[in-house]
């Protein structure tokens, strides 16, 4: 993950322990292998089972979102690369993702994160279980319940959007989990 990418989140100059960095095609098998790699890295960090659960669940949601919703840009392969980064800094764990999405996904995902950012933890949990029980956004694409799952398991979720063509956007999501 290059410094320019991290700079946009204000972390390029900070020291950090990178647990995982990946750029390229995402598949279910890749997700499984990355989880295994994360396990090896986090085993040596001595983190709690609680944090491990939060990290693994958030990681799965972020990467499966990329798997389901990413678009390809046939005229600019390099620009459509998916990216995933997990690093630890001070007492926080960061998951960062970057991928190309279409306009309809952009609206759904960003409005959902905007909504989440107005809620406190209790409200996030309440809304999550409400959505699960109601069946809304259940098996439909568009970043529904998954983003709430990430919000439940983390301490902050942010995003950045860049227009890369008339119909495509680069979505960057950062999830922050307090270690203590």
């Amino acid at each position: 993950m290059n410094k320019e990418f991290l700079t946009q989140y204000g972390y390029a100059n900070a020291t950090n322990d990178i647990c995982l960095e990946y750029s390229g095609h995402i598949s279910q098998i890749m997700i499984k292998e990355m989880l295994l790699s994360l396990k090896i890295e986090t085993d040596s960090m001595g983190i709690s089972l609680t944090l491990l659960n939060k990290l693994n669940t958030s990681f799965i949601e972020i990467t499966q979102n990329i798997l389901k919703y990413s678009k390809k840009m046939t005229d600019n392969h390099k620009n459509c690369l998916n990216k995933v980064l997990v690093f630890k800094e001070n007492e926080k764990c960061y998951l960062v993702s970057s991928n190309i999405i279409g306009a309809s996904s952009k609206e759904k995902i960003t409005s959902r994160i905007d909504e989440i950012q107005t809620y406190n933890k209790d409200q996030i949990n309440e809304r999550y279980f409400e959505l699960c029980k109601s069946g809304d956004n259940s098996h439909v694409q568009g970043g529904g319940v998954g983003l709430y799952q990430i919000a439940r398991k983390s301490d902050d979720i942010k995003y950045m959007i860049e227009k890369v063509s008339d119909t495509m956007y680069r979505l960057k999501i950062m999830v922050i989990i307090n270690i203590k």
Partner: protein
Amino acid sequence: MNNLTIKEEEYTPLVELDVKGILSFKGKSYSEDTFKFYTPVMAWINEYFDYNTPSSTVVNMEFIYFNSSSSRVLFDIFNIFEENINKSKISINWIYDEEDESSKEDGEGFQISFKSLDVKLVAK
């Protein structure tokens, strides 16, 4: 009606459904198509409650972690339990590692969402 056993695989849990009234789920659940995986499970549970249901049913759920799609399906399964609450005395054990507060919170979520069901949090 026969028992249903689905072996644990890379992205899906061990599922053991016994007509005598013990339903167990154990492992990770983050398949790409969770709905496809759980469709036969839900079909079995529906059939279980339609024919000669035992007087008591014990459900053991022990998930290491699960994705949001799995969560949605688990809610569908809990809905089935809730709909059939008069056909069998249903006890649900949400089993978690005592050091995993996050998993405990997941179980609490089911307790709150399904107040008519007997959902116990079991630390191991």
